[in-house]
């Protein structure tokens, strides 16, 4: 295979870091912000092109293993980060998403993958791509909203919290939650076609439902109690922990034995 993940990831990381430095010093450098944006966008394009070539090369969607989903995360997080930065000018937000994406790429560099071509028959379905992609997008959005909650809890400690921050998080949660709903429902429709029933309380399904319920709780709590910021921030932070268990932690739980969602890591 002529694709070299390490080199590509390295180039992307370097471009993102250069871009971030330009944005960080945009007061001192003329057009610093524009140049910085360009670097981060080009870095993201490099990794996107890698994913496309990989997809063609391995003759299946690269969405099967945990490492492959990390790769998608490293694509979606910067996109969300750059768009949000251009829209709302939050530097910390861009740095957070780029930082996390770099972390994911670094994990993948240290755990080399073979990008196995095989894909079990049950995964050979038109539902496969939309099901996983909406989840990845949703996780990226909800991940950012959880960062907002952590940041908010930090600001509250120093009494500099502004309620508008949580309103932004709400928007991310609404978008992330609707994609979470779509992922769950696409999964149900697919399961009916592949396994005969739309819901079987598979451990991954159980945890996906739990994640969904936690964010459902957050939305209802925020709807009623706009003023109770601290509780809302905590619900948001804890919801993300449930999400993380669903995404990666599930393989370590006693219940995961007979899941149709156990992938080789």
């Amino acid at each position, binding site marked *: 295979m002529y694709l070299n993940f390490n080199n590509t990831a390295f180039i992307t990381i370097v471009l993102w870091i250069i871009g971030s430095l330009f944005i960080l010093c945009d007061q001192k450098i003329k057009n610093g912000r524009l140049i910085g944006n360009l670097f981060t966008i080009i870095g993201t394009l490099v990794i996107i092109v890698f994913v496309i070539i990989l997809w063609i090369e391995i003759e299946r969607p690269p969405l099967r293993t945990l490492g492959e989903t990390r790769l998608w995360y490293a694509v979606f997080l910067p996109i969300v980060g750059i768009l949000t930065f251009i829209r709302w000018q939050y530097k910390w937000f861009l740095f957070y998403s780029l930082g996390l994406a770099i972390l994911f790429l670094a994990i993948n560099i240290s755990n080399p993958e073979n990008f196995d071509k095989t894909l079990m028959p049950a995964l050979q379905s038109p539902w496969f791509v939309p099901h996983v992609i909406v989840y990845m997008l949703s996780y990226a959005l909800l991940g950012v909203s959880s960062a907002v909650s952590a940041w908010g809890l930090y600001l509250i400690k120093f009494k500099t919290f502004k309620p508008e921050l949580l309103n932004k998080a709400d928007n991310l949660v609404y978008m992330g939650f609707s994609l979470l709903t779509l992922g769950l429902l696409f999964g149900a429709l697919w399961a009916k076609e592949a396994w005969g029933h739309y819901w079987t309380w598979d451990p991954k399904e159980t945890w996906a439902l739990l994640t969904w319920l936690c964010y459902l709780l957050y939305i209802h709590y925020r*709807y009623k109690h706009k003023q109770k910021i601290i509780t809302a921030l905590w619900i948001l932070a804890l919801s993300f922990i449930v999400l993380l268990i669903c995404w990666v932690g599930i393989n370590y739980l006693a219940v995961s034995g007979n899941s149709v969602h156990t992938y080789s890591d």
Partner: protein
Amino acid sequence: MSNNRKIIWQYPWGYAESFIIAITLLILGFAINYIGKSTVSAIQLPVNLYMGIAIIILLLLFYFLFKKKPFVKWLSGTPAAISAICFYTFLVLLMGFIPQGLPKASGFIHEIGLSDIVSSHTFLFAQIYFLVILGMVTLRRSFPLKGKNIGFFLNHFGLWLTLFSASIGAGDLQRVTLTANKTDAVFYGVDQNGKIIPDLSIAIQLKEFNIEEYPPKAFIIDDKSGSILNKELFYLKKGNKGEIMDREVEVTEFYKYGVYMSNKFHPVYDIGAAPAAYVITKNKKTNKVNEGWISCGSFRYPGKFLELSDGMLLVMADPEPKKYSSKVKIYTSSGDAFETTIEVNKPVTVDGWKIYQLDYNHKMGKWSDISILELVKDPWISVVYFGIFMLIAGALYMFWIGNKK
């Protein structure tokens, strides 16, 4: 809630009352599981249909007769909704940690119904509590239905309909395993409870079973322990070159169907013929060359491996299936007969049965003489799907609008 401390159970009810009710239901559920030592048995058609209609009429009557009463206001309010979500979430959380439905579950956890939560009374109570509250809030916002409430209606009523129809229809779900063979048409099967269903009203005969496979992979294993040593991935295909554990590897010949005769493999299409590859390896450090045939073998022929130095063997793994499918002839009760192909992810619907490709004889692999099919009947599926599509529409609406009012 007001700032003045109000006495508990004095209207309007808030979080304290909501959570006391939810926790009482939770404990009551555990107690009934413990004392009754029984699970909730699913109701079937037509009882569930009548009950479903009765519940809907009751909910409507209750709402329209008492909508001004504080009790109904509480039922359709946020504190009640949050207590119901928490109640439900708590049970799902337990399900997320306690392995469910194990055949030999015992002990206290089992006796209060936690080893099979879905069929416990506690879960039934959570479901009823959730559905009543969700139903009430849906009714409150739907009469009169305003344009700006469309997203709310799609999400709440969609969820209500999905959960409601999935729950009351659960008893009508029939999943029957049928083992089709080539000699005769099979019209019986075994359902999900292990009960034999003597007449399915359709019969199925296997015409041809097919597996499409990925090229097999090569591995280097330890002669003694049998464990895989290499991390690299190498597919055995004619002309494929690569490296495994500092050895250059080249495949000079590959037969998808090979039979070993007089010291070499021949391309023969015969029952049990297995993939075979001629491989040349060169140790990059010692320049030592090892070459020979390898094969994963089959139920009929033994496998072959290539001995390398240092007690290592080059072996071929069984090829992994890409897709498998059954060409079958189906006879319906009306006397029709037709041929069709059933594939994983591509079920076929006949006479209300949805027929799935489930399994085959793994020992015989692609030469399997049977095909295991699953026949599924779920008369409530269209109602559940109606709910699911409302939810999808609601989610798209929500994505578009966000939390803007």
